[in-house]
């Protein structure tokens, strides 16, 4: 049995050791900054550019969060429609799949043209929504379909109407599924917003992806790394928030015990 403090410390110590190895390798091998900057160079760059980078982080965070919320609400709403009518499901599901399998990079230029380059942030939002949408839809749909037959019959016995069935049975039953979908989706929303910004690449939107492009073009590799690190931190924080939300909401389900 691994002690709790060890499971917390082990990855941190490994990470610090890797950083030391990185720092030493760069300084002993005289690797130029524009190829591989040392961790201390990255930290310097982070401190010098912090106001730029933080503003960009906030922009990426805002787009990701909005995209995630819109995608989740839309997906849950459409999954509810699916559960109410087989015809709606049969008609709309293939379209949802088409959106899912089309690479976001391939449709990004089209969306940019439609929305207008001066509205790049809005275009990025739409693209991130498209990327983040499907896992929530698929999982909510699965959750609603997974309702135990006996529970469904119990509701039939008491002649529950559609709304009662939906709000007292199907949606609560599907909640663990929905949250699993949302956990995947929040990561995808971030990926979507970064990829879309790369494609937009115009500089009208100044999220972290733009900082990475900009730094890359100038061979300012320490800044590129700094932006990358902020992106990773943002991704991890979003995932942790979602995991915490899941833990709080599913307290009553207590999946481990049942």
């Amino acid at each position, binding site marked *: 049995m691994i002690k709790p403090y060890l499971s917390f410390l082990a990855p941190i110590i490994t990470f610090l050791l890797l950083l030391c190895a990185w720092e030493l390798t760069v300084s002993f091998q005289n690797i130029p900054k524009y190829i591989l900057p040392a961790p201390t160079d990255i930290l310097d760059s982070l401190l010098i550019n912090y106001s730029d980078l933080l503003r960009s982080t906030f922009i990426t965070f805002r787009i990701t969060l909005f995209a995630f919320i819109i995608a989740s609400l839309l997906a849950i709403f459409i999954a509810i429609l699916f559960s109410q009518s087989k015809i709606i499901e049969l008609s709309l599901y293939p379209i949802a799949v088409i959106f899912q399998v089309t690479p976001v990079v391939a449709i990004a230029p089209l969306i940019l043209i439609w929305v207008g380059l001066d509205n790049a942030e809005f275009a990025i939002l739409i693209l991130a929504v498209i990327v983040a949408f499907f896992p929530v839809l698929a999982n909510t749909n699965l959750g609603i379909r997974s309702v135990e037959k006996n*529970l469904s*019959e119990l509701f*039939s*016995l008491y002649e529950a109407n559609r709304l009662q069935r939906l709000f*007292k049975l199907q949606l*609560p*039953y599907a909640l663990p599924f929905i949250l699993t979908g949302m956990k995947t989706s929040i990561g995808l929303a971030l990926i979507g917003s970064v990829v879309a910004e790369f494609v937009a690449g115009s500089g009208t939107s100044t999220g972290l992806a733009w900082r990475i492009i900009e730094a890359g073009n100038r061979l300012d590799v320490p800044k590129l790394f700094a932006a990358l690190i902020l992106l990773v931190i943002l991704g991890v924080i979003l995932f942790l928030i979602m995991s915490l939300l899941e833990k709080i909401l599913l307290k009553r389900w*207590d999946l481990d*015990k*049942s």
Partner: protein
Amino acid sequence: MLKFNKIYKEYDTPILGPLSLDIKKNSFVSILGSSGAGKSTLLRLASNIIKPTSGSVEYLNNEKPNIGFVFQDPTLLPWRSVIDNVLLPAELTSENKKLSKQKAYFWLSKVGLEGKENSLPNQLSGGQKMRVSIARAMVQDCSLLLMDEPFAALDEVTRNKLEDDLLDIWEKNKLTVLFVTHSVTEAVYLAERVLVMSSSPGKILDDVVITEKRSRDDSQQSSEFFSKINYLTNILKKENNE
């Protein structure tokens, strides 16, 4: 209380019937049969959860009674506390809140779960969950109680206790009970009448009246009790071999 008129049910293949059956008011009827004999289908038809392909189900005075249904697993909503699970039928049928709450507390104490009202289902044992399920079935003053192998998954001691509690509830509340089981002993111990069903499609193979006094003590049990058990076991064996 309940009458099946030439009832027949098929999905892709015939499942049940045609069969006719009369269930008297306040009687306790056990239904025995091998898997796939359509026992559960019969209960679902009785409760109107599913409709027959042909034939009809008639209730006394042509009025659908309050029906309670207890499934093989407790079918509780895991996110609802015990009391909220018991209140579910009242919520779905928009019954008076205060009154139904009183009844829910009454039935929970009746099935021995006083003090557990605010627990969540996964904090209860298998037997306790089944008790919640019984309280939920009873909470709307049901007069027809349908039970689909409710105690099959429980250990013997818990099962015996629940069977005796069920008999007590049946006697005191003038219920009509239809009880599906795989266990011949359970069927004979509980019921006044045992129906044996054949499989594919399900039909009534035998209809046995039980008059023997029941006892948990085997030495107190009459020889007729055991001969009924043997008789029914033999019918089931024969049916399974065919």
